[in-house]
């Protein structure tokens, strides 16, 4: 049906019970009462035309496609090879096939009803009045006066003491709501100086120097690390290689003799005596954001952090030479004990990991 609006200047409401009115007339009258004028309403294809039947077929085939894809989804879901199997290509098809069938099924519905809506429903242009803008001055006046009246009735102006008392009484109640939350969560970082201590602290090992171990807890001899090699090492205490001691992973590096000499010559006072022969041990935790700075370049003696590209020069106190890091990687003082294994003679001398307010 194509309907052009005949000018109807007078906006008198229609009698919707008038039996001569069509359903469309009533609908348009309803819209009109909402301030909406349907100015254009036109079926896109003549009812029963070939074009319309073609469109209907297209919509129908979208829905049938959905049915097909959904069935395929169910079949694959139920009987497909869903269990992971290393090296098997068939099991790797399970998820893609599910995605494909589910996607097609959903897109089928989507395109189906969109085509239905776009092509088979009449095109329309409707214009609605916004009725925007502020309320009338009259309404504003009424509401404003009402509110002021309420405030006056409460008499906060006259009864000042009441206001103060209410405020004084309610403020602590607000804090009561906040207190358990803050009190329950808060944890003092200062008292135990937890941010300054790591698993290498001999205090955690009964006062004895902590052994340097591999991930599986086995101690390390100097010959275990080749020249130009590096090893991630952990404090040899229970749980030393777990996230319990997330600040303790350390990189043990065996330098070439000339690099070692260079390193020794440039050692800062705080790092004096921390090297053992040609071995150095630096904290693996980046001083910038705490990522493991572990991309060790054995020829250039640089250590790169993969998170923000800070680069540290191993042969010069692991000083940051590029990127956003500002502090050198702390050096772990190491030596070899009488059994021939590496030990840390003490904890790190400066705090490990990213800086914070209280850190000197």
């Amino acid at each position: 049906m194509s309907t052009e609006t005949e000018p109807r200047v007078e906006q008198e409401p229609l009698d919707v019970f008038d039996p001569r009115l069509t359903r469309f007339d009533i609908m348009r009258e309803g819209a009109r009462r909402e301030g909406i004028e349907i100015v254009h309403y036109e079926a896109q294809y003549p009812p029963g035309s070939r074009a319309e039947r073609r469109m209907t077929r297209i919509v129908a085939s979208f829905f049938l496609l959905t049915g097909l894809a959904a069935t395929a989804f169910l079949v694959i879901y139920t009987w497909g090879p869903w269990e992971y199997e290393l090296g098997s290509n068939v099991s790797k098809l399970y998820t893609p096939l599910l995605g494909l069938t589910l996607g097609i099924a959903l897109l089928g519905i989507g395109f189906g009803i969109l085509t239905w809506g776009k092509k088979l429903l009449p095109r329309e242009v409707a214009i609605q009045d916004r009725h925007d803008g502020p309320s009338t001055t009259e309404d504003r006046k009424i509401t404003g006066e009402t509110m002021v009246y309420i405030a006056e009735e409460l008499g906060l102006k006259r009864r000042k003491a009441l206001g103060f008392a209410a405020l004084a009484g309610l403020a602590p109640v607000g804090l009561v709501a906040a207190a358990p939350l803050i009190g329950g969560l808060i944890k003092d970082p200062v008292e135990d100086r937890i941010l300054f201590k790591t698993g290498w602290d001999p205090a955690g090992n009964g006062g004895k120097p902590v052994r340097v171990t591999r991930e599986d807890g086995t101690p390390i001899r100097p010959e275990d690390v080749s020249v130009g090699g590096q090893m991630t090492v952990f404090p040899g205490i229970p749980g030393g290689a777990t996230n319990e001691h997330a600040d303790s992973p350390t990189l043990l590096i065996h330098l070439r003799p000339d690099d070692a000499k260079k390193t020794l010559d440039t050692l800062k006072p705080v790092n004096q005596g921390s090297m053992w022969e040609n071995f150095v041990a630096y904290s693996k935790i980046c001083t910038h954001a705490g990522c493991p700075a572990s991309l060790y370049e054995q020829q250039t003696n640089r250590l790169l952090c993969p998170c923000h590209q800070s680069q540290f020069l191993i042969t010069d106190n692991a000083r940051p030479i590029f990127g956003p890091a500002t502090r050198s990687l702390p050096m772990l003082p190491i030596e070899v004990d009488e059994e021939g294994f590496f030990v840390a003679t003490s904890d790190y001398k400066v705090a490990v990991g990213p800086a914070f307010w209280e850190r000197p």
Partner: protein
Amino acid sequence: MKRRKIDVRAIPAKSAGALDDRFQAATPLRSLLNKVFPDHWSFLLGEIALFSFIVLLLTGTFLTFFYEPSLQTVTYDGSYTPLRGTHMSAAYASSLDLSFDVRGGLIMRQMHHWAALTFMAAIVVHMFRIFFTGAFRKPRETNWIIGSLLFWIGFLAGFTGYSLPDDALSGTGLRIASAIMLSIPVIGSWVTTSIFDGEFPGHVIMGRFYIAHVLLIPGILLALIAVHVGLVFKQKHTQWPGPGRTEHNVVGERMFPRYAIKQGGFFMIVFGVIALMGGLFQINPIWLFGPYEAFTVSAASQPDWYVMFLDGSTRLFPAWEIRFDLFGWGDGYTIPPIFWPTVVLPGVLTMLPLAYPFIEARLTKDKKAHNLLQRPRDVPARTALGAMAIMFWLVLTLSGGNDVIADKFHISLNAMTWAGRIGLLILPPIAYYVTYRICLGLQQHDREVLAHGVETGIIKRLPDGRFIEVHQPLAPVDEHGHGELDYAGWVVPKKMNRLGALGPAIKGFFYPIEKPAEAPVSPGHPPVSPIEPARREEISK
């Protein structure tokens, strides 16, 4: 006993009547059914976010049945053999289990993740649309603020969700997050230890993130989205300027049936695209990352794209640290370099957009309410500002992946960092300038067509031998052959067939639904008034 006869055909009417008796629904329902929405492709971008949020809720609920928010160490014995026997947290193990030992779990997880990326991407794209068209102006500042907040809350939802599997990549991200919290002056260490219940990573963080991710944040998101959509409903949608469109009307389709059907269909399409991506594109292969251990990391560790700009700013920020002594208190104090790009910068990036509608209104002294959108070219300063912001964001985001770019395109990593640092300073102003000029150029072209008409491609030879191209004027011309149309910020037809010269007009999507063919291209010519019949004629043809 006589059986009462039920008239089946009368049931709908009767029950509708019964409902109205109780809820008086007929009047508000009529209003709802008839509400008019303007139709333009760019008005559907926000819907992508809304619909992907629904997909997020659906898939996320599925995942909660299998996920275990615990950092308890377990030994994996699921079906992913390359990790069997490895020690890991229960959170990571359950994430593996829901990927490999729950039938169809992997596609659910991947759909959830893709939906999250879609959600954030749609928010950003939608925000661009709002910004560049001036849809944030009075009376819609509140909704702009809510939308900006939705981005940041979505950001938090994304980050907490990204952290939950406790794989090596997300654990690294969490560690950086802890470093960011640590960097806050005065309270940083207290905040960090309070959130992690001690030193990073502690034992409780997964439980806390989990409840935030599945309850608190979605709750806030849901509430804000409800208000956001509710306000659009209440204030009515903006519309493009054009024939018959004024500040006081809405030209479009009524909500039912067409508009609602389009929305429903679009939801299915969003859902379908996410399903396709969830099945065909692998996302976040946590089984390759391995469990999070404080000492493992992978080259090219990045956050998801919507966090990448902060990662980029962190990478680019120079090694500037403030150390000082507070009158001999303590051992001296530090403001770490990571504080500026990850706490201060996001703070600025939150506050500036929130304040932008008011700043612009103040600078342009524009206190009026606006329901008609502006074309980006018509407000070159704002458009250029937006382009500048996008360029700033783009440089940061690319820098967030600069190691991947360096590796794959054989560029020095250090050079990439410097390129980012320099680019961050000089590219945004260039983007501003270029965009400004482009806007003016586009305006100029529009004016030219209004004055001289559309290029027809017909070349005419004049008696004196000159060749000229015939221009078809858009409206009656004066004695100099110049059109009488004023520049009105409307779409100006640039091709013949849009004028109807070569047949039915209006193909393509970018233009409003009216045929500009018969409509004059200037407002007020003839004068536009809502009840004038002549105007309706124009729109309807």
